[in-house]
């Protein structure tokens, strides 16, 4: 499939000088998702200050995460890593009593080659709490990929699917409701009500979701193994997918991601045939959702977007926005897993053909400086960008939206398509409202001059 795509989609790769969040930022949503977990980030002041400054208010709410701050003695190996970690983990056990401690390895632990994977099982045995190790460092990964490393590590802790038969028998009522199909596990961390919505969406098609990776508690991890089907809900989970297939011998359903009504429908339509189920009423449901989005779509139709790229949701969002009638100039993305995203890329291509727009360039490892130059030429109506560039771009007359909001907002499924458009149209609506104030009006000519002086 990927061969076929590459004939029509073009991928470019730039210098990788772009702004993104460090992948350790995933602790911010994962600790809230997995209620009985404790995340220990083993790194330096630099990591700690990042979490503190980007997660702002959450820090003060007695979070279930902390830094194991490495000091000079740790770096120069004057202190014994194992003893130090043991001391901290015992304290965490005493203070919080979590069901799992997740060690997040950072750049520093990579560079000094701290053997976290080696120490974890020993310590786990000694203190009696599972310890999962994820290397979510900035040397290898970008922003949301942090979650990917955590889930991939957690996949190893899922039980073998032994109770397969027993579970399949279930209650008679369940059998009637769902029919009889092999277990399906979904992977990707979503707020629990969004997860429920997707469960329900599949239940409508008589597909039963037997588990989620991650579940809301570590003790509720799904069982995996031969014969279990898995499907991803987010585009940045390539490693997790690979782990599930190779190590856990699950079968991966390659599908576009359930973002936007088109994506959600395509996602369900890929899952159902696997279980020999014919979808029912999906087309109608998609149509109804589009209808409810009419007011927003009239705002965005014909407008252009530029994704600077920093959280890997870009392709799915671009595909949805193209379907809404927008023109996408560029899809910047930190990393493109062409195999895992194959179905999504195919849908992007089909959507472009359907909407009669050229297929946007996909730029891997973008160079922000070059991108700003291109933006000066293209003058997009909306730039989706990281926090570092948003205000400077606004000051130069661009409408911008923080990309990180898409990571935290509820954007999956039919019901949440509206949230995506709410975010996308907000800068347009706000700036339209302010248009009449002469002093804040945006003057395209001026922008050119000003950008010129910066570049």
């Amino acid at each position: 499939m990927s061969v076929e795509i590459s004939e029509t989609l073009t991928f470019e790769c730039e210098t990788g000088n772009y702004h993104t969040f460090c992948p350790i930022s995933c602790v911010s949503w994962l600790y809230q998702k997995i209620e009985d977990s404790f995340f220990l980030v083993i790194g330096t002041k630099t990591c700690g200050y990042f979490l503190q400054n980007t997660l702002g208010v959450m820090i003060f709410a007695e979070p279930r995460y902390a830094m194991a701050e490495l000091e000079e003695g740790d770096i120069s190996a004057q202190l014994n890593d194992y003893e130090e970690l043991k001391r901290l983990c015992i304290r965490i056990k005493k203070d919080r009593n979590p069901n799992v401690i997740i060690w997040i390895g950072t750049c520093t632990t990579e560079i000094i080659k701290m053997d976290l994977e080696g120490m974890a099982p020993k310590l786990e045995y000694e203190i009696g709490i599972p310890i999962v190790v994820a290397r979510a460092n900035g040397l290898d990964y970008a922003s949301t990929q942090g979650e990917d490393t955590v889930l991939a590590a957690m996949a190893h802790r899922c039980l073998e699917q032994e109770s397969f038969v027993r579970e399949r028998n279930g209650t008679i009522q369940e059998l009637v409701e769902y029919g009889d199909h092999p277990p399906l596990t979904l992977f990707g961390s979503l707020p629990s009500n969004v997860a429920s919505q997707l469960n329900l969406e599949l239940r409508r098609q008589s597909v039963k979701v037997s588990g989620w990776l991650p579940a809301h508690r570590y003790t509720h991890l799904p069982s995996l193994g031969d014969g279990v089907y898995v499907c991803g809900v987010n585009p940045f989970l390539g490693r997790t997918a690979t782990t599930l297939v190779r190590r856990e011998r699950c079968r991966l359903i390659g599908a576009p991601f359930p973002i936007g009504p088109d994506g959600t429908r395509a996602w369900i339509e890929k899952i159902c045939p696997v279980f020999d189920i014919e979808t029912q009423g999906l087309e109608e449901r998609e149509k109804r959702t589009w209808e409810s989005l009419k007011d927003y779509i009239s705002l965005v139709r014909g407008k252009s977007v530029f994704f600077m790229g920093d959280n890997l949701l870009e392709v799915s969002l671009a595909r949805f926005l193209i379907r809404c009638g927008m023109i996408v100039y560029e899809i910047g993305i930190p990393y493109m897993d062409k195999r895992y995203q194959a179905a999504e890329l195919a849908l992007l291509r089909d959507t472009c053909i359907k909407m009669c727009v050229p297929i946007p360039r996909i730029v891997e490892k973008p160079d922000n400086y070059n991108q700003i130059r291109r933006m000066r030429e293209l003058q997009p109506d909306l730039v989706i960008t990281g926090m570092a560039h948003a205000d400077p771009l606004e000051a130069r007359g661009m409408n911008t939206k923080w990309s990180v909001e898409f990571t935290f907002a509820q954007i999956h499924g039919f019901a949440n398509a509206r949230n995506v458009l709410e975010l996308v149209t907000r800068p347009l609506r706000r700036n339209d409202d302010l248009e009449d104030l002469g002093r804040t009006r945006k003057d395209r000519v001026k922008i050119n001059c000003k950008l010129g002086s910066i570049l």
Partner: protein
Amino acid sequence: MRLAYWMYAGPAHIGTLRVASSFKNVHAIMHAPLGDDYFNVMRSMLERERDFAPVTASIVDRHVLARGSREKVVDNILRKEKEERPDLIILTPTCTSSILQEDLQNFANRASRISDSNVIFANVDHYQVNELQAADRTLEQVVQYYLDRFHGQETLDQSLTDVPSANIIGIFTLGFHSQHDCRELRRLLRDLDIKINQVIPEGGSIKDLKNLPKAWFNLVPYREVGLMTAMYLEKKFGMPYVSTTPMGFVDMAECIQQIQRNVNTLASISSNKRVDYEPYIDEQTRFVSRAAWFSRSIDCQNLTGKETVVFGDATHAALITKMLTREMGIHVSCAGTYCKHDAEWFKEQIQGFCDKILITDDHAEVGDMIARVEPSAIFGTQMERHIGKRLDIPCGVISSPVHIQNFPLGYRPFLGYEGTNQIADLVYNSFALGMEDHLLDLFGGHDTKEIMTRSLSTGIGLIWDPESRLELNKIPHFVRNKVKRKIERFAQQKGIVNITVEVMCAAREVLST
């Protein structure tokens, strides 16, 4: 290793970046992995900067780890030189580069030979110094680099300005109210007929640094940053400096008197007329500033002997402690700072102004202390504000680290005579609110509360099944009731009695459109 949930001072490179991005046309290149450029986010978010932060990274990735940076750092410096034409490029080490032990100094030297921009390597070690110390050092390093160059070329003009003049050293980006303080200091010096020679680093130009020695003296408003530069200038050029922070009446007067001494010493040499600032101090204190009268007013009488705790950076914590005790009659039970490196100065400053002194950078220790003391109000950083929230004690924020609300758009200096007004407001409001709270407690809260909740209850005769009740509990508590009411209203409209998860989802879909 230490278990840390929160830190008061950031890592060293943040200090260097703050100095670099405060100067005009100076660019910093960090030797760092992807994602370490969050300084740009802080600057763009907190300061609401309109310009791109002049900070980029020379990214350390797997390849660099395996083979070293080789040409990468030099290439990145040269590229930035072509793109932005900065006067100076500061190569900034991070925690990562300090373990990799690459010879960054060598890269800087090589690049500076080829590049039109000056290139220096910031001499700060992640494991030795924190953000504030690093900022202090980097500022000194930059000033020294340029003055030594001009000195060496003997193109340095050391003649003093004709009229009394001063440099203000240590105003820079992301500082606590420092933009406002800077404006207030300018006003103060203008009132005293003293010309501002230069303000560094904020808005300063590298090219003007050679004129620093023309000033009669240096003013260093904050203890944390600028002192090293002032000491260097004193040693090298015999420039005197005033480092008394002009915060509160007493220290304001002390600061102005020191300025007077410095001006008069040089005036006698250059046969200028001597100055006498005493009438100015008197007039300002008694008539212009409203805070002096405020502390005599009956309102402030109510604050007498109230217990407080003060915590922050050395400058703000020390000065606020002195102000509270000396100028408002408030009892400071404990004063502390996280500037461990400056503990001696801090202790000396507040000796006799408080019962106890706490030097720590562990917020849990501060929290425990506050819980023990149970003060009527806290004056601290954002962290203490949150501790206060948990303990139901009001808190005024007087020092970094801070949130966006501490970068106000309005004029809010902490220094100078206007600063005393601002601080008086802050102190008074913290206490007054505390008092109001107590009264509310005493009378059982606002009396409208019960009526409001009664009228809002709608869920009569509705049954939530266990699954949907579970689902409801997953909704964050601060919106839960609102969502619950909406769903119940939806169910009633539809004539549904049993609320299931499906009903909830359907309600959400309808309500969200």
